[in-house]
């Protein structure tokens, strides 16, 4: 067995009301890793998390923790804690007692408990809030209490279900950094759920892209972004241009009436493929020197860059560039070999 594995899901099947929600899902999570489940709403992220936490017993398949089968173990016996989507703080307890809840259940003596709770409140930036009621806190503060309440129990794995979903953008960015810092400092495994691809890419060591109860791809944020395995992922992870092409031979692909060199190989001669090009990977050049030419339709200023919609032989391309072209202008477009990602067209 791989020593660093902490949680393994094996062929997990979950049905709700006769509908298949998780479809034979298998996944390995390594110790001290920051893993993110990323996927559109309703794809089964929360359900997967609840299987790990023990709130759902799968119809079939097994959950291993440290190599031991814990499929039937109730939640209160698992070395896992959850930060819930809606915080789920105890309204009848103040901040201190919310955080102390798990330790009191373990009958930790007061003189040990007190400094531990206070230390955890300090770590999440809520020093001095001990005696506040839950309803006297902002959403961000409530979320910090929820995180402290889980972490104080020193779980091996912390599960977080869209914990920042209810916060505004600025606070969300702040909390993203803070969660990442907490994970690194406390050195425990985080399993994080989000439908926000940017959040997933900035925080994670490993991203698990899900769709319709299946895992689409597992990899580092760079892998997922640069080498999406299918059109769903390419579309879901950031903007991208996806066009049909022909893999003429190894390292040569043809699309939009032009042959491009690329870094992919191993396809059949003249195999139909899909080509993914990220909007920021298209270089704008004078029309005479461009591999492709296009007609600029719209230009939108986005702060750091301009977003351009360009018509190339009847297909609209999205291009991000720091220099603006004018609507109606004809531009040349170059794409380097490294910027072309080839996906097999089977199974799409």
């Amino acid at each position, binding site marked *: 067995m791989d020593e660093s594995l902490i949680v393994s899901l094996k062929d997990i099947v979950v049905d709700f009301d006769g509908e298949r929600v998780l479809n034979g899902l298998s996944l390995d999570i390594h110790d001290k890793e920051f893993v993110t489940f990323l996927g559109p709403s309703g794809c089964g992220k929360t359900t997967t998390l609840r299987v790990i*936490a023990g*709130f759902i017993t799968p119809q079939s398949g097994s959950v291993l923790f440290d190599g031991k089968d814990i499929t039937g173990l*109730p*939640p*209160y016996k698992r070395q*896992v*804690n*959850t930060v*819930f*989507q*809606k915080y*789920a*703080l*105890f*309204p*009848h*307890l*103040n901040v201190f007692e919310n955080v102390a*809840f*798990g330790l009191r*259940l*373990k009958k930790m003596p007061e003189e040990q408990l007190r400094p531990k709770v206070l230390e955890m409140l300090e770590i999440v930036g809520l020093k001095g809030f001990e005696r506040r*009621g839950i*309803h006297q806190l902002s959403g961000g503060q409530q979320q910090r209490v929820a995180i402290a*309440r*889980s972490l104080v*129990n020193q779980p091996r794995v912390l599960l977080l279900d869209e914990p920042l979903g209810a916060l505004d953008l600025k606070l969300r960015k702040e909390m993203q950094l803070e969660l990442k810092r907490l994970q690194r400092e406390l050195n425990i495994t985080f399993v994080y759920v989000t439908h926000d691809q940017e959040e997933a890419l900035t925080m994670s060591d490993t991203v698990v892209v899900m769709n319709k109860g299946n895992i689409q791809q597992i990899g580092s944020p760079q892998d997922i972004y640069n080498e999406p395995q299918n059109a769903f992922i390419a579309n879901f992870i950031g903007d991208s241009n996806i066009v049909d092409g022909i893999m003429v031979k190894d390292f040569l692909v043809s699309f939009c009436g032009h042959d491009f060199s690329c870094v992919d190989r191993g396809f059949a001669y003249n195999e139909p493929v899909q080509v993914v090009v990220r909007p920021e990977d298209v270089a704008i050049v004078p029309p005479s020197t461009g591999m492709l030419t296009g007609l600029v339709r719209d230009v939108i200023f986005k702060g750091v860059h301009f977003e351009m919609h360009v018509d190339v032989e009847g297909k609209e391309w999205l291009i991000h560039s720091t220099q603006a072209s004018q609507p109606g202008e004809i531009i040349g477009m170059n794409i380097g070999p490294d910027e072309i990602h080839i996906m097999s067209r089977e199974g799409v």
Partner: protein
Amino acid sequence: MLRSKTSRWAAAPYLLWMAIFIVVPLFIVIWYALTDASGAFTLQNLAEIGRYSSVFARSLLLAAEATVICLVLGFPVGYFLSRLRANKQHIMLMLIMLPMWMNFLLRTYAWMTLLEKNGLINKLLGLFGIGPLNMINTAGAVVLGMVYNYLPYMILPLYTAMTKIDDSIIEAAQDLGCNTFRTLTRVLIPLAKPGIATGITMVFVPAVSTFIISRMLGGGSNLLIGDLIELQFLGNSYNLNLGSAMSLALMVIVLLCMSFTSSFDEEEMEGVM
């Protein structure tokens, strides 16, 4: 400002009603309780209540028993109701309220025929060679009648309080190490406290003052305060002054009970606010 003024006037008819039918009668009761047949001031009536302390004690005991049983039965029912999906909740609530649409006397009569020596239950038990059991005219029958009649008043406030508890709070408790029992004592009961307090009041108050249930199911040997008071006003031992004194004593008991449960309730609200 305008709204508060008009709303104050809107309450006027009710205040008038209260004054005529509640405050004035209350003073009449107090006046009777503190005078003798000739109308002279006396504490004799209040002192005489002491002779009936066993009846008061029995009333309190039976009402308390019924309240506890209602709480124990009603809590799980309220909890499961609150966890059902909204449309099912409404159907189940209707079913629970259904017996209340029938007349109170009728319902209690039904229990008489069930519990009698030759009643349905004894006949049924007879088929198995058991009994006949002596069920009617016992303290147990009175408690049963109270539980049966007042259980919905316990279930409803418990259900209402528990609908406010989100599933995720219960899951959070389990996640942090609560087994079923701990979830109950650490989270469910504290959060249901307002409902518990209301339910206790709504069952205990009518139970401690009932006279119909005890008369129909308790026979002569299970006299309650209510029966005693009725006897003074409508029965053989006609004595308005003593009856008023007893009513006053009962009112004090009820008030004490309500202030006890509402203090319990407020304490809870402080934690929430």
